[in-house]
Every structure is written in structure tokens, then in C-alpha cells.
């Protein structure tokens, strides 16, 4: 909503300059969008008085003038025929650039030095007239800037108005806010019309078929208007607030809408069949050619203003082309109505039309304003175009509006706002906002017709706080209410897990949850994905079921930026579509990591290996603790065959780990080996014993260490060897670690040699060498029996 500073002053007085006005209104809830200083273009132009004129000695048509410009008297050579001593004029001083682009310099004109120029209308950008200089009102004081003196130096201020405040979409509405803040009286514009000619009822008939859609419709006839361009001032004002000038009738209805906030429409009477106005729903198949030339197909839920046969306007949105005011129009019917907000909103959104009128109606117009707005427009039309106003408005008002009455408790107001206002202070604020207040307990507040947003006590409390000033309420930081926060194990573990992974050298990424379907097809989960009905882009239309493609995409991006290695993880939500319609997708926290490229951060004397399966496996073991983790060979669509494992924890499936398949790497332009794991974080949390761990007494007796190297078939799983060894001496085995693995010439083909470091300990007494030997022999024996192992 654009206003101008000077225009606003017509309705209310205030002692603020524009920045302070902006500040005050901002703190009352109007959001400042921008400002335009219309006077800036007149910088350097001042008011001057022509002291004397005499003809130029060397040129017939030029006059040499002595002009008082406040700071002194300048000699100015002028070519205008109308210049005369005693005139008050606009003087462009040397150094000025005029709105038309002309630059004024000190110069000699036919031998006479000239210090400035007396301006004509076109040079000031005020019109086309170049016949003579502009002669101004004598009252302007000499030396003052032209813009300030003439009021052309206005400032346009743009505010954003929240959707609950349709009343602020007008100069009067914003003046009401100033009134509420200052208490200075409001000046309502003149609406006194003189009526003459035949009464309206003899000329047109107005019927409302659906009063719920249109509770009120008022018409007024103005006969004998002369359609033409609007006067300068009107065009300038409309232009300043962002309205295009069309013709005087349309401009006046727009002017009144900007001034009072109530949209109006003018019909050409003779274009109305049977001279009737029928407010009704559109009939199936009806169409309407709009003012802007577009053809709209209407439906039965849309409200139209029809004549005896067909729609002439889309109610509250836009008029039709057929009955619009044109150059030869003489008699018009002015419409001023109140339409139901939802009805206007429906038509507006279905047809995709945005108009100033629709914005006001759909947010809620003032049901008490139609007659005033109509009279204001009729008055301006008679003043500016001639024409006479037919007696009495025709007010069809089947559903009279009721001012709402709301009880308001003073204590409740003070409690919620943390204020200590007495009843009188609250009453004063509400009355300045246009409410009537009965000073009872509770207060009974009758809200004005222009405030559709005030329906409940809470709304009134907001008004009190807003006008009193939220800034005057002191913030409180005392303890009150519940102070004990719950232990939140999942949240705690999310933080613990992230910190561990960061410490293990992985960077954390946060990627998009809305991904390309193609990505999910690559990993074979597209059929489980939930999809968007209106996706951001055509391809990006699915909710991720897995973090894997996102991590591959991040790897691609960073390898493209010449990263030596990418080691990343993401802890984020994944989604699986529900089987039934209307049920929300299932959401689960996943944890995934990707490692590719160099394992070390610094190239100096460091490990220059490329990360492999066991780097990532070790990392996962470090994160989770190896104890209950189990890895088993698996076939996975996203992995290279023979290089993937499924992971379980405490018997529950947790996820998988493996090397990304060649297809997947190609799809993401990745040339290096890429290893990934993805696990269910929700499952991991279930097995996380953060605080439930209990202490195990530290051993009192020394351990004995033994090495054992065996040869087994190459396809034997090491984990099974270890399990078998443990089972052979369950009470003595403290740990068994693999310390060497060999396959090659020194042992038979198809076999491998595995060497274990075994640590044995008896927790009750000192273990004897003989017992350790016996345990090791038992292990070897079991390995021989189960795996055909032999000692190496």
C-alpha cells in the first residue's frame, strides 16, 4: 500500500517528518517497504520573484529580468512572452538538472550574463505546455525550494499490509492509525452531494438473488458526465500511489478506493439490458469479456453482476468490457457494494486475477462504507466532469451488518501483556481505534465496521498492546513454569554419534530430502518413494528413501572441485510411502557414510592408500563398538558383487556396508572406488547403552598370550574361525585378534594362512602355562574338525 506524506496530512495532523512517520507506523504494525522522494527531481529549483523586466538590447524576443531568489538578486535572460515584473516564478539556479534533462549553467545570452532560468511547465515535467513560464501563487515565499512550496516535493511511502488488516489499504485507514497513535482528530473527506434530476428508482432496478454472497448493493446514477482525461493533480496522485490513469470516471473511482478503501465500479447505464442490475451466481457456460480484454469462463460458484440477460462484471473482482465507461459515455451507474470475502476469493483464485478491488473484498471490506464512498465519488465526478447526481442512492441491503460486541476483561489484558493499564487507558486506546466502549466489568467493546479482524477478546488485547507499544513492555527473565527437561536419549545419541564420526575424520553434510526419482531407481527403491504432486522441478519429485544417492552426489561435486579424498556422513530423515492412501509417509532417521580417495589428510610421510572396505568397516566398529556387530556377505543392488556386507546388531538388522557398484559410480561420474555404509539410526539407538552400562571389575590376575597361525580354505569366514576358537575355551579367552593374513606361493592354492594373537586369562586365579597350552590345543582341534585347518 503506497501513500504520500502530504496526501495523508489531508486526513489527520501529525508533527512527524516522514522518517518518524515510518518509524511510528512500523512500530504499530505496518511494515516499511520503501520510499520515493518525488521532490528530489526539483533540487536546485527555488521560488523567485521578478523584480523588474526590460527588453534585451540585442534581441527582440528576450527579456532581461532581475529576479529575487532569496539568496540575492540574479540577472536572468528569459524568452517567454508572458514574463512580467511582480510575478512569482520557478527559478532553476545554475548547476541544476531539470526533470526533462535540461542542464542549467551560467551563460552569456547575446552579451548579457544570465544566472539561471525561469521554468515553463514542460521543463519542470509538469505537462506539455511551453507557451510561457509557470506563474505561481504570490503567497509562496521567495527562496524556498520549489518542491516544498508547491507540494510537489511529496514523499511516497510504501507499506506492506498484513492480510488481517484490509482497513489499512487506504489513506483514511492509515490516517486512522495515526489518529490512534496521536489522538489528533480525523478529517473525513467531504461527501455532501447535491442531487437533481429524476430519481434513480425510475431509471434502474437492482435485485440481489443470493444475499449471503452480497449482503449489500448500493447504486447511484450520475447523468451528463463528460468523460475525458483527469486533471493534473488527480493523475499525479494516482501515479504516485501506483495507479494508472485511464479516464476521469475510472480515475475517480480508483481515487476514492485509495482514499477510503472501498472499491467502486461504474457501469454505462444504456449498456445494461432492461436497465437492471442482478447480483447472482453465474450460470453454467456463461462467459464474460473483462475490462482487460480477457475472456473468462464462469462457473456456478462465481458471483456476477448481471443485467437483465448476461453478466456485466465479476463481482468484486473486475468489470466487463461491454458496460465499461468510454469517451462517449454520458450516464453512469456507480456500484458500491459489500461482497462476501470467500466468494470473491474463490472467483479470484480460480480465474487467477489479481485486482486492487478483489484484494480489499476478499480480506473484508467495510460493510458500512458503501454509501459514503459512493457519495464521495459522485461529488468528485460532478466537480470534475460536470454531470448531475440523481436523487438518493439505491441501497439494497438484505443482510444488514451488525457491529460486533466483545467483552474485554481488564485484568486478563494486563496479565497477557504484562502491563498495568487501568480501565480508562484501555478505553482510550480502543476508542481511538474507532470502538465504542461501555465502561462496565468486563468492558463491552463495540468494534467498528471496518475492522473485520476484531472478533474475540484476544484480538482486542492485541490492539491494546500494539497501540500502547510492545517496546514499552519489559522483557522478563525470571524462572517460572516447568524447569526440568526430560532426558532425551535419541537426541543425546544423535549428538554423540555425530561427534564420534567427526572425531573419526568424516565431514558432516546436510543434503536435500527432495531428490530426483532417477536417483532412487538407481538404488532400486523408487517404488517405495513418496512423491510430490507439485514438485520444485520436473525431475526432482521424490522424497529420499536413502541417503546414498545424495552422498554420491556430494562426492561428485567435491571431486569435481579436485578434492583428494571425500569422507562424509549424513544423519538425516528418509521417507517411505505408506501403502494406504491418505496416510503420512513413514519417516526414519538414517546414518550413512561415504569414503573415497586418500585416507590421509596430509601428504607428508603419510598413508597414501585409497580408502577401502576395511577403513569404513573399522570406522563403523569404532562408532558402534565391535561387540555385537555382525557382518555377513550380501548381494545388494547398489554394491559391487562380493564387496558388500549386511550388518546386524544384537541380532537386529542394522544396514549394510559395501563398495558402490560400477553402474552407480558411472551414474555419478565417480572414477575412484567408493565405499558406503547406511544404517538405521533408529535401530542403532535401540542398542545404544549410554547410561545403562554397568561396571565390570578389573582383572586381578595376569594374562597369557599365545599366537596361532593356521591354514584353511580361502573362502572360510574369519569371524567363524574366531567364534569357534572362543567356543573352545569360553572362560579363558579374553580377546582374539587377527594379526596376519597370507595367500601365496608358500601355501597350497585355494587356501590362506591366518595368524591370531590370543590373550587368555583366568579371572579367578593365575593362569598356568599348561592350561594355556591346553586351551590353544583345544582351539586348534576344533578348527581342524570344523574347517580342516592345520597348523602352519
Amino acid at each position, binding site marked *: 500500500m503506497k501513500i504520500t506524506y502530504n496526501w495523508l496530512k489531508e486526513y489527520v495532523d501529525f508533527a512527524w517528518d516522514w522518517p518518524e512517520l515510518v518509524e511510528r507506523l512500523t512500530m504499530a*504494525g505496518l511494515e516499511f517497504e520503501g520510499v520515493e522522494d518525488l521532490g528530489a527531481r526539483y533540487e536546485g529549483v527555488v521560488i523567485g520573484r521578478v523584480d523588474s523586466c526590460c527588453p534585451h538590447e540585442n534581441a527582440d524576443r528576450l527579456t532581461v529580468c532581475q529576479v529575487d531568489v532569496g539568496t540575492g538578486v540574479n540577472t536572468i535572460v528569459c524568452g517567454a512572452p508572458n514574463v512580467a515584473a511582480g510575478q512569482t516564478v520557478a527559478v532553476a539556479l545554475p548547476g541544476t538538472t531539470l526533470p526533462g534533462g535540461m542542464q542549467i549553467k551560467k551563460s552569456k545570452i547575446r552579451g548579457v550574463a544570465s544566472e539561471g532560468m525561469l521554468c515553463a511547465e514542460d521543463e519542470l515535467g509538469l505537462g506539455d505546455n511551453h507557451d510561457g513560464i509557470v506563474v505561481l501563487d504570490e503567497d509562496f515565499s521567495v527562496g524556498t525550494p520549489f518542491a516544498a512550496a508547491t507540494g510537489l516535493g511529496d514523499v511516497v511511502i510504501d507499506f506492506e499490509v498484513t492480510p488481517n488488516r484490509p482497513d489499512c489499504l487506504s489513506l483514511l485507514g492509515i490516517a486512522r492509525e495515526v489518529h490512534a497513535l496521536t489522538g489528533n482528530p480525523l478529517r473525513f473527506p467531504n461527501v455532501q452531494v447535491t442531487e437533481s434530476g429524476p430519481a434513480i428508482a425510475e431509471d434502474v432496478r437492482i435485485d440481489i438473488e443470493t444475499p449471503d454472497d452480497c449482503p449489500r448493493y448500493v447504486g447511484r446514477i450520475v447523468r451528463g458526465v463528460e468523460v475525458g482525461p483527469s486533471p493534473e493533480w488527480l493523475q499525479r496522485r494516482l501515479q504516485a500511489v501506483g495507479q494508472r490513469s485511464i479516464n476521469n470516471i475510472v480515475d475517480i473511482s480508483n481515487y476514492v478506493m485509495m482514499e477510503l478503501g472501498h472499491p467502486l465500479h461504474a457501469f454505462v447505464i444504456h449498456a445494461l439490458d432492461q436497465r437492471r442490475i442482478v447480483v447472482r451466481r453465474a450460470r453454467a457456460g456463461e462467459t464474460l469479456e473483462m475490462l482487460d480484454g480477457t475472456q473468462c469462463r464462469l462457473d456456478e460458484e462465481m458471483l456476477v453482476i448481471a443485467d437483465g440477460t448476461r453478466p456485466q462484471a465479476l463481482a468484486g473482482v473486475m468489470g466487463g468490457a461491454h458496460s465499461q465507461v468510454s469517451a462517449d459515455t454520458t450516464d453512469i451507474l456507480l456500484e458500491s457494494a459489500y461482497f462476501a470475502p470467500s466468494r470473491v476469493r474463490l472467483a479470484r483464485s480460480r480465474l487467477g486475477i489479481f485486482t486492487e478491488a478483489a484484494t480489499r473484498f476478499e480480506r473484508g471490506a467495510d460493510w458500512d462504507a458503501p454509501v459514503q464512498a459512493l457519495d464521495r465519488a459522485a461529488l468528485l465526478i460532478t466537480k470534475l466532469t460536470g454531470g448531475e447526481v440523481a436523487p438518493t442512492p439505491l441501497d439494497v441491503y438484505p443482510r444488514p451488518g451488525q457491529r460486533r460486541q466483545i467483552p474485554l476483561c481488564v485484568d486478563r489484558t494486563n496479565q497477557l501483556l504484562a502491563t498495568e493499564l487501568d480501565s480508562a487507558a484501555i478505553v482510550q486506546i480502543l476508542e481511538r481505534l474507532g470502538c465504542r466502549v461501555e465502561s462496565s466489568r468486563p468492558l463491552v467493546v463495540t468494534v467498528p465496521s471496518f475492522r473485520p479482524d476484531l472478533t474475540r477478546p484476544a484480538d482486542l488485547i492485541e490492539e491494546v498492546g500494539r497501540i500502547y507499544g510492545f517496546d514499552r513492555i519489559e522483557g522478563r527473565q525470571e524462572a517460572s513454569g516447568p524447569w526440568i527437561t526430560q532426558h532425551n536419549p535419541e537426541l543425546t545419541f544423535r549428538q554423540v554419534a555425530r561427534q564420534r564420526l567427526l572425531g573419526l575424520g568424516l565431514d*558432516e553434510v546436510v543434503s536435500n530430502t527432495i531428490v530426483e526419482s532417477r536417483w532412487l531407481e538407481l538404488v532400486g527403491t523408487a517404488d517405495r518413494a513418496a512423491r510430490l504432486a507439485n514438485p520444485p522441478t520436473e525431475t526432482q519429485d521424490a522424497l529420499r528413501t536413502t541417503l546414498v544417492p545424495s552422498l554420491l552426489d556430494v562426492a561428485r561435486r567435491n571431486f569435481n572441485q579436485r578434492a583428494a579424498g571425500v*569422507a562424509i556422513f549424513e544423519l538425516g530423515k528418509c521417507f517411505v510411502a505408506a501403502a494406504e492412501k491418505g496416510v503420512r509417509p513413514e519417516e526414519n532417521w538414517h546414518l550413512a557414510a561415504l569414503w573415497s580417495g586418500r585416507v590421509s*589428510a596430509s601428504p607428508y610421510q603419510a598413508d597414501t592408500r585409497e580408502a577401502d572396505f576395511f577403513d569404513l568397516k573399522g570406522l563403523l566398529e569404532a562408532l558402534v563398538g565391535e561387540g555385537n556387530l555382525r557382518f555377513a556377505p550380501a548381494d545388494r543392488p547398489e554394491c559391487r558383487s562380493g564387496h558388500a556386507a549386511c550388518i546386524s546388531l544384537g541380532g537386529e538388522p542394522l544396514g549394510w556396508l559395501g563398495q558402490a557398484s560400477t553402474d552407480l559410480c558411472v551414474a555419478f561420474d565417480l572414477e575412484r572406488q567408493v565405499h558406503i555404509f547406511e544404517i538405521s539410526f533408529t535401530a542403532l539407538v535401540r542398542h545404544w547403552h549410554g547410561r545403562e552400562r554397568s561396571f565390570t571389575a578389573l582383572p586381578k590376575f595376569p594374562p597369557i598370550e599365545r599366537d596361532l597361525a593356521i591354514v584353511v580354505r580361502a573362502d572360510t569366514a574369519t569371524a567363524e574361525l574366531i567364534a569357534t576358537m572362543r567356543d573352545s575355551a569360553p572362560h579363558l579367552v579374553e580377546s582374539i585378534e587377527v594379526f596376519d593374513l597370507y595367500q601365496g606361493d608358500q601355501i597350497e592354492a585355494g587356501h590362506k594362512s591366518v595368524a591370531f594373537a590370543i590373550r587368555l586369562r583366568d579371572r579367578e586365579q593365575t593362569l598356568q602355562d599348561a592350561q594355556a597350552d591346553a586351551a590353544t590345543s583345544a582351539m586348534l582341534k576344533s578348527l581342524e574338525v570344523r574347517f580342516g585347518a592345520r597348523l602352519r
Partner: protein
Amino acid sequence: MLEEVRQLASVVVAEIAAAQDDKALEALRVHPLGRKSRLRQIARQIGHLPAAQRPALGEATGRAQQAIQQALDDKALALRQMAESASALDVTLPGRRPLLGCAHLLSQLTDELISIFQGMGFDVADGPEAEDEYHNFDALNTPADHPARDLHDTFYLEGGGLMRTHTSTVQIRVMEQTPPPVRIISLGRCYRKETVDATHHFAFHQIEGLYVDRGVSFADLKGTIEAMGRQLMGAETLVRFRPHFFPFTEPSVEYDFTCICKRQRANCSICKGTGWIEIAGAGMVDPAVFTAVGYDPDEYTGFAFGMGLERIAMIRHGIDDVRRFLENDLRFIRQF
């Protein structure tokens, strides 16, 4: 003999000083025919001398022995230092750096906010990102034809439901489950159908706060937001509350923080010289929201607030493009 002792001492000290390595030094110390042994012989003979000569000779041999021992110690130290400095490290060579990961800025901010609000007695709640119309709109006093629905362009799911447009949904889910009083924050991702550019993304992160109890007032809201502002942006941060409109709060406000430029620059790119940066919205919970979740609006009052994480991060760290957050360039991530 006295003269011999003095000469002997100075010769031995000179020999020690000339020794090139540990071995030479050791030889000087123990050689039986060396001058040092001669000194010991003299010392042993002192007892056989006339009593009058004894003190002078005794003192001289004692001094000579001391001087020699000192010379030996000094030389040993000098030789060790020489040997060590020959194998000195170049301490300016780079260290062998282990990998240390870097947390994503949004996660860091999330952790920071959780810590700030846990310190003020707020629990952390979680809610679904794929929501229904009821929790995202209706229960938040935003019925179907409410003009406020125009404020949000929403992603809808095939088969029903939508992607939440704000974290306010969690307010409803928590209050449905928990009788008052409640004091929670919730952090997470939200979605609005926006064209992606330097200042807009269709996916962004919010923090939501809610406190409901008997007697909660606007002063509590202000105090909480002020405390957050000071902890997030610096102790001197001021907060300004401007009236605004949200369907689910009444009164509604937008709050601004003082700009990091401290109003020193008229052309500040963050605040445009106003000194204030618009942060987010807040307000007192609308009675209609309480009714929707079965709380008695006459008995309970509360406040709610929201804030965009990307916006705070961009202001605080001078980040110029919101797309940086989800594109995961490690050169970006590792800066924080």
C-alpha cells in the same frame, strides 16, 4: 712439588678442553700413566711430607682435582650438546595430521540453539516433515479459505498430505500429546514452493519454541527472545518487537535484532542502514489453537516463536547465498 701440581692442573685442563669426543675424554679421565694419575700419586705422598709443607700442598692438589673435575663435566656436556644438535629436528616440517571432520554449519547452529534453550528449561521435541493439512494449517487457525494460506506455497504429496511449511506443526503435535504446562523447542526442515535463488530455497530449517502455562505473558516472550538474541549474536544485542500477523498467535509480532554493524554504516548491506535486522515471528498462542488441542484458553496462556536457521547463519557469518547450505561443498563446510 707445589709448582708441579699447579702446572699439572693447567696442562690437564687444557688437554680436556682439546678432547674431540667422548672416547678421548674418557681416556684422559682414567689413563693410569696420565697426568691425572700423577696428581693422585702426589696426593698420596702428602702424608709423608714434613708437617709444615702439608697444608699448602694439600690445598693445591684439592684445587687442582676440583678444576680437573669441572673441566671434565663441562667438556662432557659440551660434547653431548654437540652430538644432539647434529641430529636436530626441523620443527617447521608439517605435522602428521589425522583427519578431523567438520560439522555442518546448520548442525552446529542446531546444537547451539538446543544448548541455549535447554539452559532455559526447554525440552526438544521432534515432529514429522511430511504432514497433514490439519496439523500444518487447520489446527493453527488457518482454515482452507483463510487469506493467510496465500503466504505459503505448499508442496503437496501424491495421495494426500503435504510437506510442512513451518515447524509450528510440532506445537500442535506436542500439545495433543501432553497436558500443560509445556515448554519445548523443535528444530527441523520445512518446505515452501519457492524459486531457488541466492535468498530463497524450497527447503530450509527452522526452530520453533512454545511455552504454555498459567500466567505466561508477553513479557516472558520478550525475555526469552532477548536471551536468545544475546546468546546467539552477542551480549550487546537488542531486540525490537513490531506488531505483525500470524493466524496462530494473537498478539503477533515480528522481532528484529540490532545489526552487527551497530548502525555505524549507512550503506550496511544487511540492515540497509536502519540498524535492525528482521529475524522472525512470534506471539502469544491464539486461543483458537488451544481450543484445537483441547487446552482451556481461559486457564492457560502461552507464547510461540519461530526462526529460520539459514537466515541467522547468513547474518552471523556473512554468507551471501542460501544455496550453499544444501550443496555441501566441503570447502564451505570446513570454514566453520
